[in-house]
């Protein structure tokens, strides 16, 4: 597709279950970001992938959170043993580091996670 695709768009899970959120970035974009947005809050940085470099995981809130990016394209964010405070919208963005770069992040529509 033309834009960043995220799935599922909505996920309701029970406390203690594991969830996987998927992001399919724009083709050719080497940079991929995960952010979390809680109700009425700003975007909280989680993790950043750039090409084949080691990811910047400095924003992951606990070791229950992990992410991988396979083949420099699709990324999966995994949350283990979910807690109610994990409820939020998880946004993925991609970006192309090219000449005349404006730093424009292209966001997906997000995955809304609700932990009961």
């Amino acid at each position, binding site marked *: 597709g033309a834009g960043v695709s995220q799935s599922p768009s909505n996920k309701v899970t029970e406390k203690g279950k594991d969830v996987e959120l998927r992001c399919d970035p724009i083709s050719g974009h080497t*940079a991929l970001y995960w952010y979390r947005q809680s109700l009425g809050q*700003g*975007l909280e*940085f989680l993790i950043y992938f750039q090409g084949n470099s080691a990811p910047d995981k400095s924003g992951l809130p606990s070791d229950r959170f992990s992410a991988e990016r396979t083949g420099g394209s699709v990324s999966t964010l995994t949350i283990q043993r979910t807690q109610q405070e994990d409820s939020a919208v998880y946004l993925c963005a991609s*970006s192309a580091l090219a000449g005349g770069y*404006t730093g*424009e*992040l292209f*966001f997906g529509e997000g995955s809304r996670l609700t932990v009961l």
Partner: protein
Amino acid sequence: SQKIEQNSEALNIQEGKTATLTCNYTNYSPAYLQWYRQDPGRGPVFLLLIRENEKEKRKERLKVTFDTTLKQSLFHITASQPADSATYLCALTYNFNKFYFGSGTKLNVKP
């Protein structure tokens, strides 16, 4: 870490007026500052980038200023329209590796 402040109260203005939104930050000035628009249930959409050595940037009805002395950016929408109603987020970055976002200001433009 960088703290970014945007007015959490909604800004209500009349159609045709100029809307002015504020973004303040606390730490050393970033190399780049961006503004995004976010509609309910959607991801943010990029609007403008301004560099630290630029005082002002314009795009159609939008104008952004960047004052590194005040540690502040102002975002203006002239001749505002009801379709401009949305939440506007500012974001800072030093090297495009990590972007720090404010919580956004909701703009309501009334016809």
